[in-house]
């Protein structure tokens, strides 16, 4: 058991959560991070889907890593990822149909999410299945964390709700508070991610 959670494996899991965050530091997987975050619920669903797909595609590629010919590895990786995404997209349609409609093409676009290809190339091709699995989970959760932060800010200020529940009390509206329509616009997610990166960098510099 201690071997399963050695320091190296722990690092593979925790690094992407903060110091080496896929969105804020490595700038991977931005497209979907921006587009699905106008509310908290789709952001959470998207984050979890990416975590699951990254973890399992990492495991599969890691198991196959010695048999894949180097020249055609990208196509092999794409096919594995595409198959997993197809499964997840069918599951989402079956169990959370309304969210899957909201996510529209962005579920399919997980295939081209750079986090997946980046992790497969950089980690799973060189490491055994268990560290690859942890690495996949870590990166997926690091991505989900940014999605949740952006989704939280946008839903709170844009709609005055969180996960669909009103959190801003009525007397605030009576006193003249209004929801900020700008937050609902796609452009604001870019600016919020920019600010998240700013805060993240400033904070990590202080630590060092």
């Amino acid at each position: 058991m201690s071997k399963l959670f050695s320091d190296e494996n722990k690092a593979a899991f925790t690094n992407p959560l903060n110091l080496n965050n896929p969105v804020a530091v490595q700038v991977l997987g931005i497209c979907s991070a921006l587009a699905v975050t106008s509310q908290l619920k789709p952001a959470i669903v998207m984050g979890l889907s990416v975590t699951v797909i990254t973890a399992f595609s990492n495991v599969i590629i890691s198991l196959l890593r010695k048999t894949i010919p180097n020249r055609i590895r990208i196509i092999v990786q794409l096919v594995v990822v595409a198959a997993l995404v197809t499964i997840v997209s069918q599951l989402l349609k079956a169990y959370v149909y309304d969210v899957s409609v909201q996510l529209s093409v962005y579920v399919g676009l997980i295939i081209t999410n750079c986090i997946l290809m980046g992790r497969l190339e950089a980690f799973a091709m060189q490491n055994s299945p268990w560290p690859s699995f942890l690495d996949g989970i870590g990166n997926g959760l690091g991505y989900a964390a940014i999605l949740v932060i952006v989704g939280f800010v946008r839903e709170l200020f844009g709609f005055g709700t969180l996960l669909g529940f009103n959190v801003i009390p009525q007397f605030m509206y009576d006193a003249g508070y209004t929801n900020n329509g700008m937050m609902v616009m796609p452009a604001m997610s870019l600016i919020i991610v920019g600010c998240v990166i700013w805060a993240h960098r400033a904070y990590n510099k202080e630590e060092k």
Partner: protein
Amino acid sequence: MEHMISLFVRSIFVDNMIFAFFLGMCSYLAVSKNVKTALGLGVAVTFVLLVTVPVDYALQTYVLGPDAIVAGVDLTFLAFILFIAVIAGMVQLVEMIVERFSPSLYASLGIFLPLIAVNCAIMGASLFMQQRVTMEPTNAQFIGGFGDAIAYALGSGIGWLLAIVGLAAIREKMAYTDVPKPLQGLGITFITVGLMALAFMCFSGLNI
């Protein structure tokens, strides 16, 4: 014909790949440091789009759609795997052409040329096309034939090209400005793109 022109103009300005859907962000942020390289990548993306969208349109209508091959069979769930295969093959072709005719461009694009295969803009255009085929013919976004598919692909590509060249020009100028330290590089680029997206929103009421 009118519909094709309207589709073309709409996909450049209103449904811009970058500013409305955030597709292809990874290479958009990474390759936009100078105008010349940005222009090269923009042309390559436009070309790949111009080929893949009509091919995927043919696949969608004659193979995947409901009742396309055999009555009562709907193969739409296979779309992800087939589309990504077409795209990966096409990118391989473009890579060979660019290497043969413009070695300098090939060198400056580097890893981002094969990465067009996982550029969300390419896959996204095919997935949006799949959505639009099922729309009402009166809808301004409807795609109902090869002409429409080509107009949509060309418009999306030019929209992407416009966006990346615009950002590259701004970033070239921004190299001389005094930006807060943690915001430098990525952070300020995000905020710039956000402001550009806000500017592009003025086209959203455009009706042709």
